């Protein structure tokens, strides 16, 4: 039974790297970020535009493709689980394979245009690296959430609805609520609260993480500015990174627990 996690990881990855969906995702991302780079005036703006894609598209694609993979693969998982293997190892292998496939598609899709652009144009690699890191972490977070939703729901329509609800809440509704909170609580010292609140949202964390290192305070939004003011850019970056890691580990761990105990 040794090495089950690695074997399942290898199988999942080798299946997914041939998937047309993953390929399409990488190509689409490459087309859009390439377009942004070549049509825009300067690379810092391009970094910010790609960041906006990361914030909107990566969570949605990770959730939807993650769930699609989970349901398409459910019957094969059944066969795998009847082999002499531990369920937890099977889950870990699947999660690692799935999230790495999605992260790789993102890295290729977002990274290759920058590499090409760098021929003959100045590129700030620290900024680009940070966006690539943020997108990778967001992929890992939302793949974990997708599997958590998937293992807990047998009906795929309900799971998909829940996933889209979560995506919409984190990317759209959350900001409005935060803004409302800030306006209503204007008279009080709420800045520490705002830091706490943005930890609650992995999408916001990814944004703050990148914008702290760009000299574009105006784009940071309120949470970014508060992060910057209170924690300075390095401590803020570290804190955002740690919070994102928790956002990966907690849902993945919860999902593994459900997977290990549920009926198939």
């Amino acid at each position, binding site marked *: 039974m040794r090495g089950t996690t690695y074997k399942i990881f290898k199988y999942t990855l*080798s299946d997914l790297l041939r998937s047309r969906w993953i390929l399409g995702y990488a190509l689409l991302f490459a087309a859009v970020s390439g377009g942004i780079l070549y049509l825009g005036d300067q690379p810092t703006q391009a970094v910010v535009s790609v960041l906006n894609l990361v914030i909107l598209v990566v969570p949605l694609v990770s959730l939807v493709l993650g769930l699609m993979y989970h349901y398409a693969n459910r*019957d*094969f998982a*059944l066969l795998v689980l*009847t082999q*002499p293997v531990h369920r937890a190892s099977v889950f870990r292998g699947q999660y690692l394979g799935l999230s790495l496939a999605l992260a790789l598609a993102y890295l290729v899709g977002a990274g290759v245009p920058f590499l090409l652009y760098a021929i003959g144009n100045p590129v700030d690699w620290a900024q680009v690296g940070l966006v690539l890191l943020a997108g990778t972490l967001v992929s890992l977070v939302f793949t974990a959430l997708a599997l958590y939703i998937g293992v807990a729901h047998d009906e795929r329509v309900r799971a998909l609805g829940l996933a889209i609800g979560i995506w919409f809440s984190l990317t759209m509704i959350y900001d409005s609520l935060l803004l409302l909170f800030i306006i209503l609580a204007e008279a009080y010292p709420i800045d520490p609260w705002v830091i706490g609140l943005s930890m609650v949202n992995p999408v916001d964390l990814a944004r703050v993480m990148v914008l702290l290192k760009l000299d574009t305070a105006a784009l940071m939004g309120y949470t970014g500015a508060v992060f910057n003011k209170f924690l300075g850019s390095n401590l803020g970056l570290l804190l955002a990174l740690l919070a994102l890691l928790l956002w990966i580990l907690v849902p993945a761990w919860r999902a593994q627990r459900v997977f290990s105990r549920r009926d198939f």
Partner: protein
Amino acid sequence: MVEVEALTKRYGTLEVLKGVNARFEPGRVTAVVGPNASGKTTLMKSILGLVVPDGGRIRVGGEEALGNPAVRARIGYMPQDPRFPENVTVGEVIRWIQELRGERGKGLDALLDLFALRPALNQPTRVLSGGTRQKLSALLAFLFDPPVLILDEPTAGLDPLASSRFKDLVAAARDGGKTIIMTSHVMSELEELADRVLFLLEGSVIFFGAVEELRARTGEARLERAVARLMEGA
């Protein structure tokens, strides 16, 4: 040998298995029959470790099966609707299962020929017909020569040639001393293969014994009629 003792399982308020006792012996094919939702699949999935029972014990080859994945090295399983990762070839799926089991199995070439699977080896599984998927599933169940075989509707979708070859394989496995547990909606097929019948109704064992005993008790010569009689009587 597979022993099931006082097995219980409920899904929410629904009691699916109500203290099932059964002893599946080597060299016998036991047909698990019963109407839909009688607990057949839950029973088989419990033995396989796919369903976690609420109470009772399961032993496979004398060894505790609950919470013991190692026991599954002794079981070959054909699920009702076998599916495989769609971008992967048939050959790769076979290699994966060999790797996961940590053994090469025996008679792969013979099984490939028996089920005429050689031409499909390099095809991705998404292009396979239902029947071919079923053949691949049969190959995987028999490849490792496990002492216990659990076959859930194994001939569904098989063409007559593959189906008759499959039945020969099951008969040979039975004669070779394997413990075989199977379900099928095709009573004539069970009639051909089964020595014993386990009849489940709403999670309880209504009848468990030799096919002849069932015939004698119901006064029906054909298995289908005998089972129908049991269902009426219950």
